[in-house]
């Protein structure tokens, strides 16, 4: 993200400007508290190993403070209670399921979607214009609109309760193709043209000239697909009954739904499920920003 380019209008008197600035900071801080309090609350609660302490703290500012006994007890409880609550062997398996499914979707998706987009953007071939129109039209169809027939197909082809069933519907992604396409048509043609004259194949050009230039768009698409799929609840709800294949959102739903609720354990679970996305967010922040802004261009 670039720095804000538009300077604030300085209104004649410096006293008035200072007043505006103080007001701005008050608003900024108030909003920061609003957006942070649930997360601080989650972290603090996750470490409170005394459940009754946790519940008592809910009624006061102590909910945000490290009060009472703070330990990793809740985290080890998550591992210990997992087969009871979720029915799966252990938490590590669930974490593996999510990581495996999401990384396959992202990696294979990047290859499949970008190569299609490259062909659309650069190679004159029979049927190209019709395909471009098709992609732009497909963007409009939300997943929810096809979920029911897709579920029928998945059960009929015995792909329910399989990794394949979790992965394969999400690899090709019309909006990702569109993003890649937009990026590729914006690249300067000269480099590729020189290679064409030298007799390089289109594959080689794509692989050794275009890919190295396309880091930003790959990162943007990867980040937005990662975030979307890491949180995907709807599809696993519809096709998974075998707890050994549960992904994090579905396991969390099950863990959360078990009575009696152990809030300390539940919060430890949410912390463990959130840390990967938070870390990815902090490391790849500008790509998150770009993915948000580019989906803003969608329409």
């Amino acid at each position: 993200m670039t720095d804000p380019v538009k300077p604030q209008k300085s209104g004649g008197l410096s006293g008035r400007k200072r007043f505006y600035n103080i007001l701005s900071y008050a608003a900024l801080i108030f909003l920061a508290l609003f957006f942070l309090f649930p997360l601080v609350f989650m972290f603090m609660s996750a470490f409170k190993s005394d459940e009754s302490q946790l519940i008592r703290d809910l009624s006061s500012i102590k909910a945000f403070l490290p009060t009472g006994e703070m330990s990793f007890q809740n985290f080890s409880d998550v591992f210990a209670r997992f087969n009871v609550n979720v029915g799966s062997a252990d938490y590590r398996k669930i974490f593996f399921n999510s990581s495996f499914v999401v990384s396959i979707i992202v990696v294979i998706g990047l290859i499949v979607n970008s190569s299609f987009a490259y062909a659309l953007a650069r190679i004159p071939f029979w049927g190209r214009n019709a395909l471009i129109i098709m992609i732009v039209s497909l963007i409009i169809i939300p997943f929810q609109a096809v979920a029911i027939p897709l579920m029928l197909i998945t059960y009929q082809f015995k792909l329910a309760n399989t990794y394949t069933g979790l992965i394969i519907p999400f690899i090709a992604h019309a909006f990702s193709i569109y993003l890649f396409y937009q990026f590729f048509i914006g690249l300067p043609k000269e480099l590729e043209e020189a290679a064409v004259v030298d007799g390089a194949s289109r594959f080689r050009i794509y692989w050794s000239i275009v890919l190295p230039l396309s880091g930003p768009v790959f990162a943007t698409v990867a980040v937005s697909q990662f975030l979307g799929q890491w949180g995907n609840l709807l599809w696993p709800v519809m096709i998974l009954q075998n707890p050994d294949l549960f992904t994090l959102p579905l396991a969390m739903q099950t863990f959360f739904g078990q009575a009696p609720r152990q809030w300390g354990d539940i919060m430890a679970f949410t912390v463990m499920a959130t840390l990967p996305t938070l870390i990815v967010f902090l490391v790849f922040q500008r790509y998150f920003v770009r993915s948000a802004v580019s989906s803003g261009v969608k329409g």
Partner: protein
Amino acid sequence: MTKPTRKGAAEREDNITAWLMSTPAIVLLSVFLIIPFLMAFGLSFTNQRLIPNVNVPTQFIGLTNYGRMLEDASFVRALLNNLLFAVVVVPVQTSLSLGMALLVNQKLPGVNFFRTVYFVPVATVMVVVAVIWSLIYNSPQGLMNAFASVVTFGAVKEVAWLDNPVTAFPAIMLLSIWQGAGYQMLIFLAGLQGISIDMYEAAGIDGATPVQQFWKITLPSLRNTLILVVITTTIFAFQLFDQNWIMTKGGPQNSTLTLVMKMVQDGFQQQKIGFASAISVIFFLIVFAISLVQRRLLPEERAVK
């Protein structure tokens, strides 16, 4: 005479390469998007079930599913809930995120920090958000109850936020805004940075106050961004599922039931694929209609930047 043939060969090669690069995506899109999309329409005229009963073959039943839908009180309730969500959340979230964008667009020390903080909820997946807020809404002891009691000087106390049909949906709306506002802030920010500084300088010389500048310059310049944000939030409102599914399962008394939840309940839990497909069709038509509005309002080049 060699030239044309070489050109022809290159063209043929291009065709082959292009189709090789396109085929995986085209096949996957066909099987997992286009075909199911068309199937939704076809299935909506049948009584297809998820696990077909051998003795009761699937039949064409015309518009029966659509007729049943209108008589189904919980479907109508779900549709109204999605509308209500859109009517409340769209204006609130849009104005909040615009305000946030204006705040962090100022040249003040530390605004980058605040921008990051406002965006953190977006990086938290909705299932996690729903679980955290369930504890915030816990009753009788809970953060929301403590807060409500303080701001109303004790008038409001021990509300079971998620078990009360009056408060459950607004409670879900609040956390949805919490999670989504940062995302739209960024879209507004991109729009704001596209406005030329000259316009503000000219207005400053003419003695326009910041408030006048907002109404006369900022808002009109953000027209396309605003349309976009409003439209996408409205579409999100109709896709509502995760938070309601985790927190209330649509209850109490269907007060938080949504179209997508209804689809899952009827199509998956009750296995009525035909009926759920009819709901999918209605859902798609709504989203499609909203997108058409957007295409009418936005200029042809679709560029918002």
